[in-house]
């Protein structure tokens, strides 16, 4: 019993460490896709470890709900991150790349990000 609790405490602390690293990555990395790279991988692992750790430390816990939440996190977070990354790339979010863009002729990409375009009512009227 004490072994399980010690294991749970270690997993809780490691998970919090991963979440802190993910937070630092989200705050410090330069562009949207790199921030997503920090938040998705480290965030998924950290949240799963915190859930497993606290489930190991609790005396009465149903393993089904723990397994369900871990499986749910592992299934949905990568899917959501892929959709968000695709949307960020296509909408022309600022990237800072070290070489040329390998996807340049594969996926259509807007030249300017959404927040830097003029609002629709401020655009110049079409000349007929």
């Amino acid at each position, binding site marked *: 019993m004490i072994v399980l609790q010690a294991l749970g405490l270690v997993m809780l602390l490691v998970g919090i460490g991963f979440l802190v690293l993910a937070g630092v990555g989200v705050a410090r990395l330069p562009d949207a896709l790199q921030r997503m790279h920090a938040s998705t991988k480290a965030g998924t692992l*950290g949240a799963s470890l915190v859930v497993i750790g606290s489930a190991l430390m609790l005396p009465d816990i149903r393993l089904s709900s723990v397994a369900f*939440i871990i499986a749910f*996190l592992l299934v949905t977070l990568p899917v959501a991150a892929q959709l*968000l990354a695709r949307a960020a790339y296509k909408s022309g979010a600022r990237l800072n790349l070290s070489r040329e863009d390998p996807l340049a002729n594969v996926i259509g990409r807007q030249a300017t990000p959404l927040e830097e375009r003029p609002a629709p009512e401020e655009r110049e009227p079409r000349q007929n």
Partner: protein
Amino acid sequence: MNGLGLPLIGMIAGALLMVPLVLAAWRMIRGPGVADRFVALDMLIGVVVALTAVVALVTGRGAFLDIGVGVALVNFVATVALSAFLERKGSGK
């Protein structure tokens, strides 16, 4: 195992989890682009899922883990909806 003090451990863990929460919230407020804010929101709700597990530790009720399942579900639906918005509006006319 009351000698270990599960509520105390949970409170310390909750206090430590404020660090990634504040960092993600700062990025969400500060973020220069729309995509940055959506990424920070995703991260923020991921931290909240971990916080529900910690609340289960503090209160000693395992039912809070089910609330974590609900929060993760809302996170998924919200991220999919926001990325559909960004893709349509961002690559739109």
